[in-house]
């Protein structure tokens, strides 16, 4: 029995699909340089992809054919040597649209395996976002702006080759830097890319994450019913209607909070979240009307509270809001929980305004997809500079 390697790439659907495919393919090709064999595939349950929803690609590599079959006998590996999260906000948890509940980003990591994250944050921020794990693991950060692009285009900012360089360092038994560089030259004939891989290889450092570090919450899960417990005719009960909200200060009941699916929440799709200035809101209803996920709860006084259990972070509310800085999209890494903004505002309006001002300061430091013409021309040179200088 030879050795089996499994690598998963967790990415944002559509925006990072090409990036993830290039990574899993290049992993197999680099290992093949050293006589290993392998397969590369995306998790079929994630498809068809939706904008930003967490999705996975896998590379399964083995030293011989029979061992590879052992790896292929399980469609999704139960354990991986390396998990790559190509967006740091994925560290908050991964909920596929195939309805598996919320899974910790580090769930499949073997004891002592490595989580590679692309981020501008430091290890403390990343560790705080990820759920606690029962065994220690290593964290390696590839420094840089998270790479997002569209489905049919690819933003060539060297994120892929820098991650490949990092893998060669953290899992040298899989492949060497030389093999990575060979594959880069074979595929893309770009010496600067090969150089970026080498720099990442030299610079990458790891931090050990202890079992007492990380988010202590138990992620919500979903238990599938047995065949005879399910309704016949592929008919499922609808989500019940909603209820009044209660004001945390006056205890007045009013407004409307829709009931939501308790086991399919979709908020792990979010990379930015709206923060709402309730003091300047003119109750025009546009955010509530346009939200594609019905995530706005109507408060007893007729304000609109974006419910963070339901918000996918699409930014439509910010786009339609007619009041300046009443709804502002802020990097999801700035938040540690999904608590109600409206309740915080009701309890302490001055404190809330100070909190709000501080959050808005970090806007806009990220974007998903393609937002404006010339965006890539701005972002790619920045990333290449980071790849060069670190």
């Amino acid at each position, binding site marked *: 029995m030879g050795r089996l390697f499994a690598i998963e790439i967790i990415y944002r659907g559509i925006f990072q699909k090409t990036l993830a495919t290039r990574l*899993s393919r290049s992993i197999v090709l680099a290992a*093949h340089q050293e006589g290993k064999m392998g*397969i590369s*595939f995306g998790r*079929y349950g994630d498809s*068809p992809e939706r904008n930003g929803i967490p999705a996975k690609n896998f590379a399964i590599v083995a030293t011989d054919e029979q061992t590879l*079959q052992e790896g*292929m006998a*399980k469609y999704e590996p139960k354990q991986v040597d390396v998990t790559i999260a190509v967006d740091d906000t994925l560290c908050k948890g991964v909920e596929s649209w195939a309805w598996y509940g919320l899974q910790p980003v580090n769930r499949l990591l073997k004891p002592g395996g490595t989580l590679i994250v692309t981020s501008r944050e430091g290890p403390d921020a990343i560790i705080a976002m990820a759920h606690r794990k029962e065994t220690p693991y290593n964290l390696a950060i590839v420094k840089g702006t998270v790479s997002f692009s569209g489905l049919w285009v690819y933003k060539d900012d060297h994120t892929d080759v820098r991650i490949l360089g990092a893998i060669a360092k953290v899992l040298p038994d899989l492949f060497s830097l030389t093999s990575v560089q060979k594959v880069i030259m074979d595929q893309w004939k770009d010496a600067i890319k090969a150089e970026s891989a080498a720099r990442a290889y030299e610079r990458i450092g790891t931090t050990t994450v202890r079992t007492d570090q990380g988010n202590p919450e138990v992620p919500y899960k979903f238990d599938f019913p047995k065949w005879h417990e399910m309704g016949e005719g*592929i008919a499922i009960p609808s989500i019940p209607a909603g209820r009044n909200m209660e004001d945390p200060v006056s205890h007045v009941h009013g407004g409307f909070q829709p009931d939501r699916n308790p086991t399919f929440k979709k908020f792990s799709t979010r990379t930015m979240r709206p923060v709402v200035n309730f003091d300047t809101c003119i109750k025009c209803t546009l955010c509530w009307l346009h939200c594609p996920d019905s995530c706005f709860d109507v408060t007893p006084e007729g304000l609109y509270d974006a419910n963070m259990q339901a918000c996918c972070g699409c930014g439509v509310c910010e786009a339609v809001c007619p009041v300046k800085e009443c709804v502002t999209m802020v990097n999801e890494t700035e938040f540690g929980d999904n608590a109600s903004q409206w309740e915080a505002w009701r309890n302490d309006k001055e404190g809330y305004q100070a909190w709000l001002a501080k959050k808005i300061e970090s806007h806009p430091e990220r974007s998903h997809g393609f937002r404006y013409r010339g965006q890539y021309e701005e972002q790619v040179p920045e990333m290449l500079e980071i790849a060069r200088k670190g």
Partner: protein
Amino acid sequence: MATLAAVEEPRKTEETALITGSEAIAVACKLADVDVITAYPIRPYDTVMQYVCKLVSNGEMDCEYIVAEGEHSQFEIVKHASAAGARVFCGSSGVGWMYAMEALTVTPALRIPMIAMVGNRALDDPGAFGVEHNDALTVRDLGWQLVWVDNAQEALDTALIAYRVAEDRRIFLPCAISCDGAFLTHSQALVKIPSQEKVNEFLPPYNRGDLLLHPDNPITVAPQGNEDWVMEIRRQNYAAMERAHGVIVEAYADFERIFGRSYGNPFFEEYMTDDADIVLMGMGTLSISVKVAIRQMRREGKKVGFVRMRWFRPFAAEELAKSLQRFEAIGVIDRDYSFGSPYLGGVLAGEIRHALYPGAGKKPPVLDFICGLGGREVTVPDVQKMADSVYHAADGKAQPLTQWIGLRE
């Protein structure tokens, strides 16, 4: 004199590429120099049309590439193109294949050697994308040749073989290559791509001969016929399918001679059967879990073998019956269903029992396992559970003839 760009010589060497099963079939289309390809998207088949499209766009492949407005037209267009002498390719999945059903029924009747890829997908509802074999099996009675493959290399090789067999004047019947959705269509593996030279040696040009629809060969195809004609027409198709067995054997022998890659018995693969007490059977990619499970069971002293069906039509009943009589009991894994069928089993198990019935000699008990529907994994523990039940049957302990494995119950 201006220097002309060098015309690329046909590739003379074999190359290795990291491609999916679907991409492997697209590469086979390129190597076979297919003339007309029609497309209509449905996953998992759409991965083939996307890759063909890429090859055409990149100037690597020259063909008429037509995106139809639905699967029915998709299959009708290539049917007509084939009648006019074009080598054709198309494909679909699940309910897309069903939507084309009327075109699928007339294709073998007109003796059209169409090659189609079926990316096996559960039929709707509930709109799952995962593998189930019922889609391809719906044409099993119509004159379509049906073959299942379990890896990307076999997909490429079988596509070349399928052209060779289907376009043989003795046959002229369509052939569907079944590829399990996800496990094969969406998984990239290292595939050896043969040289163009060798493909040209293996695969002669399509020659429709006396059946060519062309002004120089005035014929009418598919005039109205009544009860005075139908039985004789059906008997001709019966004869062509009867001949297919021998032509397939010839094609595989030639394939091995030219490409140096052997598939042994073309119709079914036997794995660790030489000393086996019992065997499991199945089609497609579930073979991987079964083989891994068999290696584990053999370490525990259980002599289990595996027979993987490749060609379902034509069905090599005599060879299969002869082989299966060696075993104490047989477990058939059906990635399909046939509600209300004999013993409420799946399609493959029914065919296996049928194949065993007329022959002389031992008739080992045949158990049926419905497993892996809608893309659910057939796991190694699932396979062990099935093998245990087959062992009990071999020991004469009564077992349910049809069992659902991997079901939440």
